């Protein structure tokens, strides 16, 4: 099992969700997040004063998937979240030791 965390542009959420459903990913958690990568935000002007806004609104998706679905999920996110412009986000993948369904004690990939 692997956990996939993807930070994406808020405007791409629907497209990414649809793409993930298409490859068979059913469970996911979506968080509203703020952050920045290398571009360090953007500038805003209020009455002539320049302000650097370095925490931009983002969406963070989290999902735990079986090993065979990891690459498919990554490809689905890449193809649906990409605009080609700076600030498109990142994907992080990590190993998961155990998953347990609270309702009936199921463990492992059957609990996903």
């Amino acid at each position, binding site marked *: 099992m692997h956990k996939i965390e993807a930070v994406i542009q808020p405007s791409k959420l629907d497209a990414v969700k649809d793409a993930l459903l298409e490859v068979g990913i059913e469970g996911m958690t979506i968080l509203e997040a703020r952050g920045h990568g290398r571009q360090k935000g953007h500038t*805003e*002007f*209020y*009455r*002539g*004063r320049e*302000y*650097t806004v370095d925490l931009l609104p983002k969406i963070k998706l989290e999902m735990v998937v079986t090993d065979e679905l990891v690459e498919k999920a990554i490809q689905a996110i890449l193809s649906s979240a990409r605009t080609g412009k700076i600030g498109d986000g990142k994907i992080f993948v990590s190993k998961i030791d155990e998953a347990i369904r609270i309702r009936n004690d199921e463990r492992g990939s059957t609990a996903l």
Partner: protein
Amino acid sequence: MRSSFLGIFLALALFCCGTSFAQSAPSPSTADQIARLQAQVAQAQSSADNGWMLVSAALVLMMTGPGLALFYGGLVRRKNVLSVMMQSFAMMAIITIMWAIVNYSLAFDAGTTFIGGLHHLFLKGVGLNPDPDYAATLPLQTFMVYQLMFAIITPALITGAFAERMKFSGMAAFLILWSIVVYSPMAHMVWGKGGLLNASLGGRFPCLDFAGGTVVHVTSGVSALVTAIYLGKRIGYPKEAMMPHSVVLSFIGACLLWVGWFGFNAGSALAAGTLATSAFVNTHFAAAAAALSWAAAEWIRNGKPSALGAISGSVAGLVAITPAAGFVSPMSAIIIGLIAGIFCYFMVIKVKSWFGYDDSLDAFGVHGAGGTLGAILTGVFATSAINPIFGKTASGAPIPTGGADGNWHQVLNQFIGVAIAWAISIVGTLILLKLVDLTIGLRVTPEQEIEGLDLTQHGEEGYDHAS
């Protein structure tokens, strides 16, 4: 037989009619009818004037209540939103009571050339009969309550300069005293009977100020600057980002100000006549022109016309047209607006950073600078074609009003009016600030300032983060 019955019936009918005519009053003479008609017309005019002025008074109050409170409220950080709104609201309550007790008398009772007398303390003698010196067709109470709304918004404007760092108690004490020491004398000089600058009631230096360019905007703007310098900068200014927490609130507030300003300027005609129309049109045109010129300046400089820039520009235009509203043509109003937008933008963007004062919400940059500019331009553009305030010559020709008519001397009078307003604002404000600072105290502690004035001064928060 039938014809004789008919004859008797007709005779009876005629008799009855004749009797009833004989019983009614004798027909009135033409002179009586004319007199009665004239009285009805006068009454109708008076009712129209009174209705318009009551609506105008309400519009001016709307400028302070939702208008200024939202405009300023959106410009501060979220931890101070209520404190700023509360300062405007407090003026609505506090100045109203002060006005009834003493301030109206000091402003509008015939006293000396500098300040009114004390005959109207506790509104004594301020009833429902008109005072022809001020407004012949209005109950004096209408005039009184209309002027009260000006007295409310003027100190409320100052709060923009010391936003986010002044104690509520110190603010209240300072502005109560300010309304007595600065506002009332200035209002008396410009609008009161026998006032030094009164153009229509025999002042020594006739200064044209239709709706309060010097009385409202110069006094508040200059006092705002003095207060901002006296108090010092907010902690972290100008290094720390102090972005407006909601331009949306400011946007709504500015639009309410624009609408309310029709009561402020067109109402200053003190009648529902053609002069009100003129002031109404000028007000609107100047605001639009200034919104465009500020936004255009920003567009050129930053590459984008911001909403905050456009609304700030409109307020600058409204300020600048205030003294001129009832004296200039619509095209002059557009010119005044265009100049005001650029000038105030320059004052807010450049001059403030050159001198380094922390006028938090640009009360001086917009009201002090815009009011001063507008007062001078009033002397330039005023024309007797719009308002023959100085009357007519023996031959019946209107006496030139301003530079547009060739009376450039009026510009000098305007300078005198502005200079007096600056002087009384600087001296009066400094003395009062020192007085309140030594007794009640003016500034919150650094800890309170960092925590925010909503919690530390009022024990509440504008936004509930938990729910």
